[in-house]
């Protein structure tokens, strides 16, 4: 037990140590050393995770570690503790695994940046908070990590702080996340007052043993928690920060805004599956929001010209699909897609980073093209990942996406249709990206063309590993024979009776999905390869494309409704209410002064006036006495 505690602490604190070293000594250590330390710190966590993971696959016993009392509230005792069970270890595996690869990649990618040690310290801090989020044994420890990763996201989006647009994007991400966080807090308050605990294990027993559960209140809690998930995992209506977050360096987009942090909402819902299972209405809301988000984001992705923006909307869309699965209580399906998505989306982002790096910062696909020859590794790895995300058979995404759509089909045909359309669109915009970037002639400057080259080994190695995982990752949950479902089974109260039996319906659905994906690819091929179309420059975009290109003007609408109105209110309060109140208080003083001043006039020493007042008073008293009788 003692050893487990120590190892768990190593797992959490190794990245924190890396952070401290880089913060205090990073500059003097030099760029390469600081990068190596940052990477090594995460590799240590990965190694410990592997150890725990191999343990749990054998013992199937969760490990609970309690450190000390943290916050005392009358009916709640919240301690700082960790829970290493199937779910957290699975998450840790890809957080630290992909994290290590991305750290490695960053050594090369960020090497020209003067603040590279800062970058690694933030990245380490992020991994620390992400591990805390995943490993916490109660909701409040999760919340430390939850807000902590939000902070790191803020720091890394605004990493190039000289540009105020980037700072705006960072601030927006933090504030929109905090809207969700308030929901999460309120959800915690309700759960805490209902069950007197925020500890997962205790909560689960309490709910299982409860009679006369107040289901409406529990549903309210679930809804509030889901609002939190919407913020972190970029779902409607809180999704607009994620595309803007692409202002950060590309490794950040891969790690935080694709593979790990944005999946925190799915993690939390899966973690609290026993709460959500009792709130079917909320589950419906989750499924609908997930489906709609996946479609809306996919349509916006169709016309974007910034390579990272395409991937960002694709991420929002894929997260939507995961929530679609969560809404049907198919937690293991959602988790499966989280994992495959982490592989191929991290690969895609890192690949796009390799491209951007090769073109010295160019992100506009209209100025790319023909990079296939100069950057073969980048091309092939991205191609594999694109095939995976498009659901082409036997790549990882095929299995996970297929399971989501199949689950949807069994519960709700309309949502199945929405999800399927989103998937077809995904195949289209991904291959649009591929054709525009890697095929035909190069459309950039001669200068760029001259310097075109494949990135170095530190960049291509992670790409190759991730491409490998994107290819074979689906093996962890083959239809009918799912290692993943067995592994996760202890988490869920539902008996695994819902195992899909592969029948005619399933094969038909699979056929439709594959055909849809291929159709999307084909259209992209015709449009961007055969016909050699290149998206118009910004001013020539019109009609529906313009609406999509401007993201349905949602940012502008939010701006008017929320940002401007609160600012108008602020000015009104400042200029009118504040000055008004102040004048009122001064006015009280003036009135007192005035009374004194007028009163002074009476005391003017004139005996006549005094006598007059005296008689007047006497009359008043006498008449009062008479009238009173």
């Amino acid at each position: 037990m003692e050893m487990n505690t120590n190892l768990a602490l190593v797992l959490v604190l190794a990245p924190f140590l890396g952070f401290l070293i880089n913060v205090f000594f990073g500059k003097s250590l030099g760029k390469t050393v600081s990068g190596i330390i940052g990477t090594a710190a995460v590799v240590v966590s990965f190694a410990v995770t592997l150890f725990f993971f191999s343990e749990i696959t054998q013992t199937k016993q969760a490990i609970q570690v309690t450190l000390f009392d943290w916050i005392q509230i009358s009916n709640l005792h919240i301690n700082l503790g960790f829970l290493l069970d199937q779910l957290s270890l699975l998450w840790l595996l890809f957080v630290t695994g992909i994290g290590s690869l991305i750290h490695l990649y960053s050594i090369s990618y960020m090497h020209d940046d003067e603040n590279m040690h800062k970058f690694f310290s933030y990245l380490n801090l992020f991994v620390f908070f992400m591990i805390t989020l995943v490993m916490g044994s109660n909701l409040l420890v999760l919340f430390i990590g939850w807000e902590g990763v939000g902070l790191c996201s803020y720091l890394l989006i605004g990493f190039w702080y000289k540009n105020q647009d980037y700072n705006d994007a960072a601030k927006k991400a933090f504030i929109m996340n905090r809207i969700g966080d308030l929901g999460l807090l309120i959800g915690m308050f309700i759960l805490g007052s209902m069950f007197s605990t925020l500890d997962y294990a205790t909560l689960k027993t309490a709910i299982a043993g409860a009679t006369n559960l107040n289901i409406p209140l529990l549903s309210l809690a679930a809804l509030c928690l889901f609002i939190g998930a919407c913020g972190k995992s970029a779902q409607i209506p809180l999704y607009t920060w994620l595309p803007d977050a692409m202002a950060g360096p590309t490794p950040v987009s891969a790690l935080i805004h694709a593979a790990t942090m944005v999946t925190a909402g799915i993690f939390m819902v899966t973690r609290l599956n026993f709460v959500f299972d009792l709130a079917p209405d909320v589950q419906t809301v989750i499924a609908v929001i997930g489906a709609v988000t996946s479609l809306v984001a996919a349509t916006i992705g169709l016309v974007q010209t910034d390579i990272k923006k395409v991937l960002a909307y694709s991420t929002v869309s894929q997260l939507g699909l995961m929530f679609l699965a969560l809404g049907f209580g198919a937690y293991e399906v959602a988790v499966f897609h989280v994992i495959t998505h982490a592989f191929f989306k991290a690969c895609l982002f890192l690949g796009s980073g390799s491209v951007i790096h090769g073109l010295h910062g160019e992100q506009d696909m209209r100025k790319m093209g023909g990079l296939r020859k100069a950057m073969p590794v980048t091309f092939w790895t991205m191609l594999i990942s694109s095939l995976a995300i498009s659901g082409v058979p036997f790549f990882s995404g095929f299995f996970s996406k297929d399971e989501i759509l199949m689950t949807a089909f069994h519960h709700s045909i309309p949502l199945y249709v929405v999800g399927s359309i989103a998937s077809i669109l995904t195949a289209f915009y991904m291959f649009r990206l591929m054709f525009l970037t890697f095929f035909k002639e190069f459309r950039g400057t001669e200068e760029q063309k001259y310097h075109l080259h494949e990135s170095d080994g530190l960049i291509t190695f992670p790409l190759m590993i991730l491409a490998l995982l994107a290819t074979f990752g689906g093996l962890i949950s083959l239809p009918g024979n799912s290692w993943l479902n067995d592994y996760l089974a202890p988490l869920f109260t539902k008996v695994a009776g819902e195992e899909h039996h592969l029948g005619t319906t399933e094969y038909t659905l699979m056929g439709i999905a594959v055909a849809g994906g291929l159709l999307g690819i084909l259209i992209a091929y015709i449009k961007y390869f055969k016909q050699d179309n290149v998206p118009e420059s910004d001013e020539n975009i019109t009609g529906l494309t313009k609406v999509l290109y401007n993201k349905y003007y949602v940012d502008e609408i939010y701006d008017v409704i929320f940002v401007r109105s609160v600012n108008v209110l602020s000015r009104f309060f400042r200029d009118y209410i504040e000055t008004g109140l102040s004048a009122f208080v001064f006015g009280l003083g003036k009135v007192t002064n005035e009374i004194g001043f007028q009163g002074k006039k009476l005391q003017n020493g004139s005996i006549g006036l005094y006598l007059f007042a005296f008689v007047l008073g006497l009359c008043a008293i006498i008449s009062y006495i008479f009238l009173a009788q």
Partner: protein
Amino acid sequence: MNVSLILIILLIGAFATYFVGDKLASKVALFFSLAALGCSLVLLSHFNAGENISLINAWITQPKISFALNADGLAIAMLLLTVALTPIIIFSSFGNEYKNAKGFYALILFMAFAMTGTFLAADGLLYYIFWELSLIPIYFIALIWGNGDAEERRKAVVKFFIYTLAGSLFMLVAFIYLYQKAGSFLIEDLYKLNLSPTEQLWIFLAFFLAYAIKIPIIPFHTWQANVYQKAPTVGTMLLSGIMLKMGLYSVIRWQLPIAPLAAKEYMNIFIALGIAGVIYGSIVALRQKDLKKLLAYSSLAHVGLIAAGTYTLTLDGLRGAVLQMIAHGFVVVGLFYAAEIIFRRFETRKISELGGIRIQSPKFTSMFLILVLASVALPSTFNFVGEFTVLYSLSQINVWFAVLGGTTIILGAYYMLKMFQNVMLGDANSKTFADVSVNEGISLVVIIAVLIFFGFYPKPITDLITPSLETILNVINKN
């Protein structure tokens, strides 16, 4: 050993500082403030060992007024806040030159003396004397050593003085009335009174007026922003870090237990008033042009939430409020100090004229950012512990209170990050900004260390204050 020792040290310190002259004044003041801190820590260990460090001495026989100091856990926590912040505040002024420094530093110690007395006093009239006494030094500090146009400053400071004094007079009337009933000013005698609901209401309102102006609770806050802006930063720190906690503390110590029926009857109104302050303060803070004024309104928002916590009359509400008082005391002193550090270099506090500091001074930026994050109650800072507890207690009364009060985490992040961006980030400013000096760094590091340590381990403070809060709650719930 008894607690009056701290008062004596501070008072002697004030005189000693004045008599050593301008040159040594700051160092002597620092020495005495540190002595008071050290002594308080010793007292704390005596208290934790179970020793009684309170005292009652007869003082004036007719009317019966006692020199009674009650050092329970709650009072000790506030005492520690005062004596821990005082040396930080004094040390933070070391980069500045003051005319007539001996008077300046003597007044700081004298103010610490009066505020400590207010927290410890267990006799109504003694308490009232300390309460009013603390107003005098801050009046002079703000008036003489303040900044900006002298005439405007005089206007703001005199308004503050008269306003708070006027509010306190109602409290004095309440005390006199209570004396008529109880025949004593001793707090335990006042706790024992059985006042009718009507009497309680009037007493409650009289106290409220005094405290609402001091804390301040909207709409009684109009003195605050201008005084914070015009006072020298040391004065602003004393006001925001410690003095406004006198009001909040007094709510818990005097107002609620003496008039519990009124407190229960009108609880929702006063909670709502506190929460209104949270939202109003946050929104007004959004469009402030002056850094100190922005921080003043942020303070208004935070104390609104604390006040709402106290009026819940639950252990969680009171405990969260006290934790948050301490956390806010530290963070607000840190933030005002950061504003001062910027002012020393750029000689302006206008937000629109700042920016581009990050590029020149990464160390200062990191420290400032941590303070900003603590102020918006990021988990793992002390402020989160307090804010979470208060919001939880509000949710137990009515979940909408928690939702509305909780907007502070959104709006707070909005105005603070916006301020941070405009003040610190962006491309280089034309003026040079030297990174923090060692002296400046020490104060900031101490504050940050306190905020992070208690963010993870608030237990010592929780254990210190909980028994006395339970006692007070017993008095409140005696009927």
